[in-house]
């Protein structure tokens, strides 16, 4: 199928200089290529740990700007999938691409982070002995090589960016506190803020609202919905009301493979999903 070239102009993040070439474009090494509007593409990913198949020919595609929720019972492979995407675990087989060109199975964790994938862990991991502000300073999109970091000083616009993100996650008043002293929900938010200052294109969020109060959960859903469009988000969550509040497409994982996909109502009506969740 041949697509008319001008259609792609509206999209963000395309490598420069390929709009005039309807029949192909220059591949810019290291740059995210969203030509076909797919930001993340997993095909037949399998991972085994000592004979246990954590992922079993998992295939998944996330569109640019999409907000996707992933649900599934414990052991369905949700966290392993995130490990594969962020380079922590290498798949035994299968393909994992970020955009059209970046092969995630060949990049290291820091390289993947630089390419534009940010990850929030299931258990909030912030730097407990650094202040909230310092946590964000470290996460800030910057040249993260040793010789730059040795002499790095925060520029005014960087401070402004940190301040803006702090205000967005309502942590401005806590900027000078040690992150270890924050409440659980605040730590979750701090970690989300750390993702935001990294300016990733794709955010992977593993149970972002675990341990949050209802009000915090609601505000988090609002935040994610407002991020969709400019960012792509993959949210792993158990809380169904939260998934409903996100309002996007839902993927159900079971035993390391995709069981069902669609909007929440469709998925919840699916016989196999009910069976997996409720048992026979």
């Amino acid at each position, binding site marked *: 199928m041949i697509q008319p070239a001008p259609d792609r102009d509206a999209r963000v993040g395309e490598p420069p200089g390929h709009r005039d070439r309807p029949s192909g474009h220059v591949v810019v090494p290291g740059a995210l290529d969203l030509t076909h509007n797919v930001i993340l593409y997993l095909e037949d990913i399998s991972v085994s740990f000592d004979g246990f198949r954590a992922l079993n020919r998992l295939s998944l595609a996330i569109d640019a700007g999409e907000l996707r929720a992933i649900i599934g019972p414990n052991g369905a492979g949700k966290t392993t999938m995130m490990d594969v995407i962020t380079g*922590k675990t290498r798949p035994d087989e299968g393909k994992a691409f970020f955009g059209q060109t970046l092969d995630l199975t060949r990049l*290291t*964790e820091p390289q993947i982070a630089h390419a534009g994938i940010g990850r929030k862990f299931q258990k909030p991991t912030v730097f*407990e*002995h*650094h202040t909230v502000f310092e946590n964000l*300073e470290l996460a800030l999109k910057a040249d993260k090589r040793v010789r730059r970091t040795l002499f790095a000083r925060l520029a005014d616009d960087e401070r402004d960016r940190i301040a803006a993100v702090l205000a967005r996650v309502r942590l401005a008043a806590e900027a000078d506190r040690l992150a270890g002293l924050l409440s659980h929900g605040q730590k979750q938010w701090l970690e989300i803020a750390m993702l935001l200052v990294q300016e990733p294109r794709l955010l992977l969020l593993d149970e972002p609202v675990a341990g949050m109060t209802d009000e915090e959960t609601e505000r988090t859903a609002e935040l994610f919905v407002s991020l969709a469009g400019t960012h792509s988000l993959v949210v792993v969550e158990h809380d169904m009301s939260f998934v409903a509040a996100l309002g996007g497409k839902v993927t159900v994982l079971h035993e390391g493979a995709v069981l069902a996909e669609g909007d929440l109502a469709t998925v919840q009506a699916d016989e196999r999903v009910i069976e997996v969740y409720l048992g026979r």
Partner: protein
Amino acid sequence: MRTPLTLRLFAGMPRSAQVALALFALAAWGWVPFAHLALAPEHALHLSAYWVSLLGKILCYMVLAVALDLIWGYAGILSLGHGLFFALGGYAFGMYLMRGIGRDGSYQSDLPDFMVFLDWKELPWYWAGSDSFLWALFLAMALPGAVAFVFGWFAFRSRIKGVYFSIITQALTYAAMLLFFRNETGFGGNNGFTDFKRILGYPITAPETRVALFALSAALLVAALVLGRYLVTSRFGRVLAAIRDAESRVMFIGYNPLHYKLFVWTLSAVLCGLAGALYVPQVGIINPSEMSPANSIEIAIWVAVGGRGTLVGAVVGAGLVNLAKSWFTVSFPEYWPFVLGFLFVAVTLFLPDGVVGLVRRLTRRVAGDAASRGEGGTFGASAGSPAHPAAAPPGPARALAGAAPATAAGAVADADASTGEGAIGAERPIAPAARALPGAYAAQSLETRDERANGPAVTSPAIATKGVQP
């Protein structure tokens, strides 16, 4: 705003550190030379050669301790093989001192005595250039640096951490010791290098030379402290502390921990090498026993006694333990190993944040009571005053958990779970701010703060259970 870097470094220090540095400079470059050279030996304040050499030697040990604190206290990497880098620096410079003997040795040969004894006819290739002072100085930095770089590259790339790393460093220094014990290695076997005559043409036993070496050691210590402080208060230092606390998180925000560890590890080894180069002419001997595993463990004890992650603690610890050692080995030599073992146990049990931590806790108990009723601002001030929160010494988290209400206990359980891996190396400061205050207040303050920020502390059970999840 364009002030020279060195000035900025000093200006950025707390007042107490500036005063201490000034006093130290006055003592090292003013009082010691005066008391040793100008005062007659009969004078009550005369400083004997024994004392100048002993203090100079301890200054070198202090540099060694600062070097270890940089990687142990801030990057969480416990090396039990730092004596190797120290000895390598000493050997590299010792080669120059051996050549400096010239034909004044027992055999009146151009070759060092031990080579004549082994019936060698010419210098081995790796002794080339050893008659040059500058080359020796370069070698004293480059050799430990290169060994550390290669070893560190393999170890950190394989993500070896914690106890495993410590054990491998022990093995490394032990292997090197065995190598240097061999006569064929060409470094004097188990006798090592000794009987030095001169350095840069000056007689090595002259009082002036001794004082100059002492003053240089003091300068090296100041330089190491200033450099160390710059590093740990820069963003680089914050990345290091972040690697210590949550290495995988650091990777996922785009830093490569390998490069950071390797840099500070190699730098630490270079510092050790320089300290070794200054140590050898002052004590007049270098032999393979400097590489014995026990020596390297002792360095870790100095740092632990002083308080790790503080830089100044390393200096204090090295000073205290070595002064005690000098006294003990003269008065009750056979009991020193027991004292050392006791120190290790006692510090681990009762002084987890070392002497410096104890002093800080005591001074804060006095100051903290007055400030304790203030709001967040005082909190930050009391916790962050020693330059940086991460610089605060490690502390007894469990003591807190016992007395504290649910919220504080939850927070501590959380922190504990995250620090669970890698026994020795991974031990680290926990909630320094809370510890800075008397126990009951700390617990109370944690709770009220959570309430203020977050409504009643309903999340605490969730935190506690969350903390033990894998």
